[in-house]
């Protein structure tokens, strides 16, 4: 059983799950270094960022317990990331058509 329900209704993430997440993060770190050594051109940036997003997602979901949080925190996280995406997206919209 990966998750145990605490008596107060709080989720406890087992040591085993945390170690599995750690192992996955280590493998992804190795993968991102390997990808950077391949001849991919612009694929480098996209590949590295895709792996970074996957690693970040694991950290947020498990280490930061977000996958067990309620709707409020999830929506707030979504709004914060959307704001960041709008900032970055609009900047590049401007840079690309200058």
């Amino acid at each position, binding site marked *: 059983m990966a998750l145990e329900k605490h008596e107060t209704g709080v989720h406890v993430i087992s040591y085993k799950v*945390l170690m599995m997440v750690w192992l996955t993060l280590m493998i992804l*770190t190795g993968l991102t270094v390997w990808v950077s050594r391949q001849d991919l051109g612009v694929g480098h940036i996209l590949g590295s*960022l895709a792996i970074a997003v996957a690693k970040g997602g694991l*950290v947020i979901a498990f280490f930061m317990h977000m996958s067990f949080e309620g709707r409020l*925190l999830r929506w707030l996280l979504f709004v914060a990331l959307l704001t960041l995406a709008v900032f970055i997206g609009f900047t590049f919209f401007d840079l690309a058509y200058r």
Partner: protein
Amino acid sequence: MIQRDENRYAGAKLGIWLFLFTEILLFGGLFLLYAAYLSQYPHEFASAGHEMQLAFGFANTLVLITSSMLAAMSLTAVQLREQRKALIMLGATIFCAIIFLVNKYFEWSSEINSGFYPNSPRLATGPMGEALYFSLYYLTTGLHGLHVLIGIVLLTLVSVKVSHGTIHAGNYVLLENSALYWHLVDLIWIFIFPLYYLVL
């Protein structure tokens, strides 16, 4: 009474997350600046990026991910009423954080000795894009390093409270929030590592 405690817990949790969002936007701004300069000076960024030493960044990535897991484990330990284990995990987290900073010290020393620091003769006479890369590099990793330092102070305070029994299975929101802050420091580094050490 129990209801009021639960509200207080939810409020504390909401508060730290709102703070973390402002941190994400702060570092997001620096990443945005990186992206904009990269598109403007692709060749200068590439040549400056090749001066970075991957081994330092790689080692620090492994250290920080490990410390993040240890911090998460300390919360699990407190929730399971294993105070001693929680203390050991917190101590190991702080140890990793110190290793990170020592590693950073050697990395910066090596770069400064090679003549890469803001307004150094080598950068001042070189192309604009390279100077911008290194300014942004020192600003971003310096600000991140400051967060690591604050994390060490915070986690030390939490360790004292765990050892005194003020943080326990019935009240651990300070530990949880400090761990969340620490995970954010890890999260930011997960993006700094590819941008400054790998993609160029």
